[in-house]
């Protein structure tokens, strides 16, 4: 059979050479949008030709028991205080991340800018639009934003204040073409991956970025900001303690001469 395979391979090459239609095509030449071909290479054992089943096959389960059910039945519940506390924390975190998910209807009705504004302001952040100088915040669950798409509203500045913004929340803040000012100060969930996200989303417009007190950011996150060529101010108070971090900020300023980093204490080489 090995030789048959090699023969088929050669046959395909010869066909291509002579421009004869060949029945033996590469998988990648098949349109990947359609159902992948291999589903026809192996037939399920109960769908083969010659198999016969009665009408009761309707009730036959297609799959076996889910291993999740087995796992739940076999696990011994741990009701110690530490475990309960851990479970509560985990559930809280999962609920918060679920809160950050992308809702398509919101963006369809409101458009990208207003949808992001609603998302942020509802959860405690402040937003400022192009052409106005007042910050829109919420006062006891009330805030003043239009509830239909309005072309005149373009977000210019976002201040996260005391909102817990996770990586998943950035899905709701896409397509903000006029965003120039972003402050993520005191938001402890911001880490290198978020900076990677920010750097790819807002690379063409962001001029001010404040990530002070975001202790999870490391020098590698600063490296990710190399794509932002419009960045003018970068604030990194209270995270720039290591030499590596300071070096990264220095190198960032090298490639972006108009950048000004604040919050880094460079080593004084005079002494």
């Amino acid at each position, binding site marked *: 059979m090995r030789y048959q395979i090699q023969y088929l391979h050669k046959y395909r090459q010869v066909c291509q050479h002579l421009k004869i239609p060949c029945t033996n095509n590469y998988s990648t030449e098949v349109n990947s949008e359609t159902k992948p071909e*291999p589903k026809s290479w192996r037939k399920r054992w109960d769908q083969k030709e010659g198999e016969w089943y009665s009408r009761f096959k309707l009730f036959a389960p297609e799959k076996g028991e889910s291993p999740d059910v087995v796992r739940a039945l076999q696990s011994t519940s741990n009701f110690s205080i530490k475990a309960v506390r851990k479970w509560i924390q985990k559930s809280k975190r999962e609920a918060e991340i679920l809160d950050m998910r992308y809702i398509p209807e919101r963006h369809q009705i409101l458009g990208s800018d207003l949808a992001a504004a609603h998302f942020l302001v509802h959860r405690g952040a402040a937003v400022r639009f192009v052409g106005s100088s007042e910050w829109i915040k919420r006062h006891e669950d009330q805030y003043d934003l239009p509830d239909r798409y309005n072309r005149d509203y373009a977000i210019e500045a976002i201040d996260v204040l005391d909102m817990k913004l996770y990586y998943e929340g950035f899905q709701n803040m896409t397509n903000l073409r006029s965003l120039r000012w972003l402050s993520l100060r005191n938001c402890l969930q911001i880490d290198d991956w978020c900076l990677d996200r920010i750097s790819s989303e807002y690379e063409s417009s962001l001029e001010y970025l404040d990530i002070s007190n975001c202790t999870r950011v490391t*020098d590698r996150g600063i490296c990710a900001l190399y794509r932002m*060529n419009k960045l003018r101010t970068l604030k990194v108070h209270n995270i720039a303690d290591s030499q590596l971090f300071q070096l*990264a900020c220095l190198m960032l300023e090298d490639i972006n001469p108009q950048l000004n980093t604040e919050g880094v204490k460079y080593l004084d080489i005079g002494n």
Partner: protein
Amino acid sequence: MIKTVNTFKLRKFINDKFVNLNKSAYVFINRCESSYSSDEPPKPEHPIKRTFRILGNDMKTAKNKVESFVERMQGIRELSNKILKSPYRDGIFPEHCDIVIIGGGAMGSSIAYWLKQRAPNAITVTVIEKDPSVNQNILSWGQYAEASTCLSVGGLRQQFSLEENIKMSLFGAEFLRNINQHLSVEGHDPPDVQFTPCGYLFLASEKGAQQLEENAKLQKKLGAKNELLTPVKLKQKFPWINTDGIALGCHGLENEGWFDPWSLLYAFKRKALSLGVEYIDGEAIGFEFKKMPDLLMDGMEPGSYEGVDKVLVRTESGEIRSVKFGIVIIAAGPYSAKVARMARIGTGDGMLSIPLPVEPRKRYVFCINCKNGPGLNTPLTIDPSGTYFRREGLAGNYICGRSPLPEEEPSVDNLDVDHDFFDKNIWPVLASRVPAFEAVKVKNAWGGYYEYNTYDENGIVGPHPYYINMYIATGFSGHGIQHAPAVGRGVMEMILDGGFETIDLTRMSFDRLIMDRPLIEENIV
């Protein structure tokens, strides 16, 4: 009289079934592996002796369990001496398990982790790894000397031309982002893979520009972010580049960069161990087969099925033990073809005549230092000739390499580095692409094996068509580490769910070798 006849028949029955059967299996292995004809295959064991041995082992296991329970109650932490006494979880060699994984690198450990976290109490998983520690004197915890995982450059990119590869990389990025939730173990530091999100830059000449553009479109459709750059824009963004001969560049914007593969492997292994996976330090040297005449399958003579039943392991102390398994997974990296041959894949008839086309290919990685090299704005750049380089740290160090042409493939006997390769093949290309690299110094170099799939340079993930209990997850030809989480999850879904649930990898199964449908990936580095 009846009694004597019965005992005579009983003894004959025992001899036939147990003693002679083992003999035939070992004869086969002796024929195949001439290298260990000097070793003594274990003598077939008398069943009465076996019964007493197993009972003795059970007593030992029970005693160990009681002792550790008592110690925990008394608040004494397990002393490291205990580990020295016996490297096995229950104090004895695991003679049987549900799923055995041959190969404990990133792939094997990932599969073990996903299996055990889905069904922690339902299955026992054993991983056989032949190369766990470097220094035999100090009891170091798993330093893989020649495993490809740790010698890898550790890149993560979505710039592939195959839909499955793109999806697997996207999941790899998501997994690494949430690695704390997945792989953290109580009482230990959280895992840190040190991901540097600096992106990838693929450069294409006139010939490859069309393909690059199509790939970029497909990647965007599946959720990856990238931008196509003309030579003028390339020069603007990356002033250190020399755009002679470049028609188009594709710059990955998000979830692309590089990380530390050793940390990922360590995290997988530690989490797997904490979930109850047993790691055996030994080398798989053969399989034992079992005839199953009542098993019927398409494509073979009825009654001729002979399945794999046990794997023979040569442990560190030199003795040969066997592990009886329910399912075997071959994830042995560059040595997968050797393991597959032990199971008659490639040497049998019918479906067993197709060999596993994975072989080790040596690749060099050089660490160079350049004083005025490109600064922070250096993604992992790949020249149309295949030469790549990336920044390493912030002190002017760079890592570079190149896949040699097929006729220049270095020998794979050892991992020695050929420094002429840098001077002849890599440095001229680098210096012409990045003028600053005219003055570089080679600081360090190492070699590692690609688990190279000679058929179509893409991974083989799936069940074996003949053996009903064998799965294969190997052959990733240089981009395995970023796909390790996704492949682990895929294999787990295949085994525990019966099919792929999240990413559909049916196109990458072994079947394509039989059907002769190569799955060509254009962006191999």
